[in-house]
């Protein structure tokens, strides 16, 4: 099981703050994960319509979309940050 956590409008559009998923074989990278998630329903399709803007962190560290997700405990998906 992999824990997925969502923030800001990604969370609102998907409709939940987090979930545990079993990532299917062949979903190796962050980019693959975003494609697979989009296939899971309209809410995911809406949230991830523009995957290139989605920022991703694995185990609390920023990663790019080419990063492999094997062994990830927690994967976070969120929009560009607006703190400060």
């Amino acid at each position: 099981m992999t824990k997925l956590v969502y923030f800001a409008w990604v969370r609102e559009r998907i409709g939940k703050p987090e979930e545990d998923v079993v990532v299917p074989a062949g979903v190796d990278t962050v980019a693959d994960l975003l494609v697979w998630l989009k296939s899971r329903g309209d809410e995911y399709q809406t949230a991830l319509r523009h995957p290139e803007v989605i920022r991703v962190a694995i185990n609390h560290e920023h990663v790019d979309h080419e990063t492999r997700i094997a062994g990830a405990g927690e994967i976070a998906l969120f929009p560009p940050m607006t703190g400060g």
Partner: protein
Amino acid sequence: MAGPVLPVVRLQAEDFDIGEEIARLTTGNSDVGAVVTFSGLCRGEQGSLSALELEHYPGMAEAEIARIAKEATERWPLAGLTAIHRYGKIRPGENIVLVVAASAHRQAAFEAASFLMDFLKSRAPFWKKEHHADGSKGGWVDAKESDDAAAARWKP
């Protein structure tokens, strides 16, 4: 100086006291010759905004600010460095963020504070949602490309 100082990083819902935070870095440390503070406040946008709601990623927000602060202490000769970021509902005129950088001389303190803020804005996992004064539905604040550009200028 005996190696980089350990930065202080805090996330909190409540306000902070800038004077207290400066004193924390300077009291008993007579080597400090310069203190730079930056505080970011919530703008009212000509009365149209009733509040900003600051969402954050608990765990990662602390870790990311600590990583940026540690880099600052390795890059500049600092006597102290503090970063405090608030979360939750913040009203116009209230504080959102504070950076305090202390050093022997002003240049390191100015640059470290600026560096920390530039990276905090583009890499610390916080998101602002607007609440409108007239009760209409507010939205998420868009990230600015100028904030990414501000961070990029520090690349060695």
